[in-house]
């Protein structure tokens, strides 16, 4: 595997160089102190990139926008004509992704393009997107728990390149061919790692493997309790303080449910949906199998930790902790699962 060094002082130049041929997304702090991904050159400058924290907003919307016009339609000579939306076919690089969010992209890939039915809208964006991640040196936030979900602060899954912060430089590890090609365009900025830098990188990997520093966790044992707690009164109790808002799902890097509506202007629009909203499961017949918020909340945890695991072999949670940080009612997914009875 190819290894390089990218000096931090050269990052701005590297980002700008990448920006010449690609749409580059970097985490930046907005006016209100929220760290979110913005497009370089359009909404953000390379010097504003903020790589020292877990962004408050995951990069999900770059691949799966919250609002996406699928097509428009018009009437021509009494006939309906469908006009497809121009796809966003620019080459994209998401730079500075955290390993949990990169894994989340791999999870979304499985949903949208990994099965029998391929989502062409997602595919168009995903195929042209490269992910350059930065390994976390221990938990990036007090709400993090990625090791519990099969992830790791130095996981490479979903990434094309993984960077390790080794002090005044990033240790650069190539993960995929896509990543190799991107680095070729940066070859002038790259150097060879010193033994000292190798050692520093190995230390980050060791800490990641040992899951050092994490205060939150979910054990396989608590997850297995889900097998027998579907009808438990526990869900009524724990959901009492849930507000049925969409914060947990909208900020979740793996939540991918959507709704499709025709809107004025003759548009067919796809928007994010949330299983916490009461109309999420509303049938055409007016029957709604999940009218109570306890049922909806339970569904979210079952989908993340049981249905998904049973059906695809992996959790639908990457342990980023954003739902914990953002829940207006202070619900903590690690506590909810640990206390299942």
């Amino acid at each position: 595997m190819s290894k390089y060094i990218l000096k931090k002082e050269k990052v701005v130049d590297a980002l700008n160089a990448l920006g010449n041929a690609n749409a580059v997304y970097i985490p930046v702090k907005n006016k209100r102190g929220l760290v979110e991904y913005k497009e370089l050159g359009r909404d953000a400058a390379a010097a504003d990139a903020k790589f020292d924290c877990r962004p408050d907003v995951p990069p999900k919307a770059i691949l799966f926008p919250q609002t996406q016009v699928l097509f428009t339609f018009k009437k021509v000579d009494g006939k309906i004509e469908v006009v497809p939306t121009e796809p966003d076919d620019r080459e994209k690089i998401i730079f500075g992704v955290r390993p949990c969010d990169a894994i989340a992209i791999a999870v979304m890939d499985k949903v949208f393009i990994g099965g029998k039915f391929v989502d062409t809208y997602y595919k168009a964006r995903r195929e042209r997107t490269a992910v350059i991640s930065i390994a976390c040196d221990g938990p990036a936030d007090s709400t993090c728990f990625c090791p519990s979900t099969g992830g790791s602060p130095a996981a490479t899954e979903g990434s094309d390149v993984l960077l390790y912060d080794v002090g005044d430089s990033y240790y650069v590890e190539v993960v995929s061919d896509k990543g190799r090609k991107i680095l070729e365009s940066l070859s002038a900025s790259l150097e060879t790692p010193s033994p000292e830098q190798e050692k520093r990188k190995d230390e980050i990997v060791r800490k990641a493997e040992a899951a050092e520093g994490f205060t939150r966790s979910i054990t396989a044992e608590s997850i297995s309790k889900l097998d027998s707690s579907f009808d438990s009164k526990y869900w009524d109790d724990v959901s009492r303080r849930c507000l049925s808002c969409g914060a947990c799902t909208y900020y979740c890097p793996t939540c991918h449910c959507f709704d499709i509506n025709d809107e004025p202007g003759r548009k067919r629009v796809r928007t994010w949906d949330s299983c916490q909203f009461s109309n999420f499961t509303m049938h055409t017949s007016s029957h709604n199998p999940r009218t109570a918020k306890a049922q909806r909340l339970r569904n979210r945890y079952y989908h993340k930790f049981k249905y998904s695991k049973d059906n695809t072999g992996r959790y639908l949670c990457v342990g980023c902790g954003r739902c914990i940080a953002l829940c207006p009612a202070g619900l903590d997914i690690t506590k909810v699962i640990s206390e299942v009875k």
Partner: protein
Amino acid sequence: MSDEKIREEAKKALRERGLKCVIGWSADGTPLFAETEDDIDRLSFNKDCANNLVGYLTQEVRSQRGKTRDGKEKVVKPVGIVVRGCDSKALLLLLNENILSRKDVFIIGVPCTGVEDKRAGALYRKCVKCAMRNPVVYDVLASEKVPEDEKDYSEIEAIENMSVEERWEFWEEIFADCVRCHACKRSCPVCYCDECLLDPTDVAIRPDTTADEKAHRPRWVERSVNVRENLLYHLARLPHLAGRCVDCGECERVCPQRLPLRLLTAKLEKDVKEIFCYEPAKEEGQKPLIAMSKMEDENEFIM
């Protein structure tokens, strides 16, 4: 400390009044529904107790209502709640609007000197200068009353002094960032409608709602999340809150995008005060603004 007093009064009321539960905060600031004396021992009030719990009170009382099989009204067990000054204003408004009945609630008031935003590690903006630190409706107070500040509208005045273009730009930038997770609406203690015309994700459809009814239901706000729809959502909420919103700031607290939503609600409160000389939840038994008119009300739109 007020914690002992809260627990003592909560236990007493649980025993003597047969409360269904007491809604309060645990020491880490998360909402707690205490049903037993052991639960009550976990009740606390400190700087981390930021949630307005009044919405839960409506939930707990309403969920008990209805008719029994033989057509009689079900018995509603009273529900206890711990409230700060701002929360108590919202609670009083619900009492005045007959959403809650005074006999259905037992109120433990806690005078408050402000709560902290953990993300910022500082007091919430609404708490820095606060004109409602002391509960206005309660059965017992858990501690001594504290001094209050004058209401500060300087931020609102700064926006009022902007040109129309500046103001548009200011708000457009804010509304562009809204993701319409509906946390503001769903945490709002005075937003208690079963169905909201501004929320296309929560339309009240019962099993007997006909296809015709569904087909002809107007959709005021689209599912698309963009400045236009977001603006409609936020601005159309405001007139429904006029004379009702007590500026408790819960909408701003829960917003994951950290949008300064209190700039809207405080402006609303200021306008209602200036135009109609009305302050919501000022006293028990007060008529709703929407149910009264005075000769001196501004009425150019009629003439």
